[in-house]
């Protein structure tokens, strides 16, 4: 039975790139433990002989012909960008002291 510790939730926040506040971590801890209890019971019936279903409709992939179509213009591509420069999207520095 999973129980969520503060450290675990902080770690999940890091993995999910969300800078959770202390107050949020506290609240999530309580909520997630309740939710986890209720959903944990799926394991009761998930025996080895049951195959998993990833997609409810059993389709096989349609394969697209390798033919180009009109792309977005650079202006369209950049239009939504919070910060752009020289036709490109700007990222803050990628390496930091914590990495």
């Amino acid at each position: 039975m999973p129980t969520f510790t503060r450290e675990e939730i902080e770690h999940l926040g890091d993995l999910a790139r969300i800078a959770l506040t202390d107050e949020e971590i506290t609240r999530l801890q309580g909520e997630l433990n309740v939710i986890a209890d209720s959903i944990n019971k799926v394991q009761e019936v998930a025996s080895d002989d049951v195959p998993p279903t990833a997609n409810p409709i059993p389709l096989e992939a349609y394969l697209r012909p390798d033919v180009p179509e009109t792309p977005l213009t650079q202006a369209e591509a950049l239009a939504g960008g919070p910060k752009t420069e020289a036709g490109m999207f700007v990222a803050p520095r990628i390496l930091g002291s914590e990495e």
Partner: protein
Amino acid sequence: MAEKLMKYADATKKYDVVFGLETHVELCTKTKLFCPAEVHFGGEPNTQLTPVSLGLPGSLPVVNKTAVDYAIKLGLALHCEIAEWSQFARKNYFYPDMPRDYQISQYDKPTNGNGYLDVELEDGTVFRVPIERAHIEDDAGKNTHVGGADGRIEGADHSLVDYNRAGVPLIEIVTKPIEGAGDRAPEIAGAYMRAIRDIVRALGISHARMEQGNMRADVNVSLRPSADAPYGTRSETKNVNSFRGIEKTIQYEIRRQAARLDEGKEILQETRHWDEATQTTAGGRVKSDADDYRYFPDPDLVMLHITKEHIAEIEAQMPEMPRERRNRLKAEWNLTDVQMRDILNADALDLIEDTVKAGATAAGARKWWLGELSREANAKGVSLEELNVTPADVAEVEKLIADGKLNDKLAKQTVSGVLAGEGTPAEVVAKHGYKIVEDTGAIEAAVDAAFEANPDVVEKLKSGNMKPMGVIIGAVMKATRGQADAKAVTKIVMGKIKG
């Protein structure tokens, strides 16, 4: 801080080397793996995008058939089992150059699994490299680092992201741990990488230009005290993009790890980087649960179904594989191991074969491409292919020689003319009026003049010492402005001596 290194010979004597390679090969499809954005090298940033490859909300991936067919071709070439049903999964991690912040790759159900590749080493030894899988995945965009020294990521102020490359199809070929290589590990790695390059080029599925990033490898190395001990902790050196770099990385890691183990220090499970400038690997990030990629089947894609019939169709179109081809040509052209190696080292196999196909003899073709033309390419610092001369040109020159229309000297001048952009060999010959002097009277006169000018040489020739023959021939050539046929000159000289 320089790392301690053990002597290579000692390290490989003392420890058993295990290594592995994860090779990324960029496929040369027209469009991206999951959307119909056209791919071409260069081009304005962020102009090769659809909503899918920009990761816009609501966009969905659809698999490129050609990419799958290319993967099947490679799977066949690597003797893989090709899965009837394979699946794309999401590899979740955040990075500014990843438009969806997950990569679509194959995880537990790759298209190609469990194969091998026999690679031939310089001395003819054949080493079998076991292949774990060759799976399909998409590439990320490109970051340009601004504000730091030399565009490096360290110290950069910010980065500019171009997503043009995002979504370009890759195949990642993962070897099983390669054991039993011993001190030949670097050599085997290099030979393996070159073999992969030759195969993907022969299949026409990748340009495989390492300098353009079409091919790059992650190199895993670990040591253990003996071949029956469990694997040691491995280091993973990422994105090495030259054959020499890969060989040197393995060599360096063996020496570095051996020195650490000798001192009783542990090997960190970390990602490292090969530094071409210092010829060392540098420590990067230590692996942690931050590398929890949370793989799961991509719910936007359904299972990939590859029928036996389709595999058979592709198999029927497979070209001859490079190693088989090399062996065949070596036999057909009657070459020694060394001669063949010279051809391969000069990257001249295709050119020579095309020249032979255009009508030249193998010996003639080889002479040009490894001789005159190699010197020319070296001098210019370009590859043979980049020279302004085609196999057809070379074959044409050879034919002119065989027909007795050019001698060696004129042939060289003709080729120089072709290289200089003066046109086809026939055009160059016409332009300069190159032709062999067939008037034996003129040659005889020139020989007589040469005899007169060099009485000592004539004496030696008469006494059976043929070494100074060149002096006479040279003088005759000079007199006839190179248009005399050397064979004809020799014949006349011999006749006069004996007479």
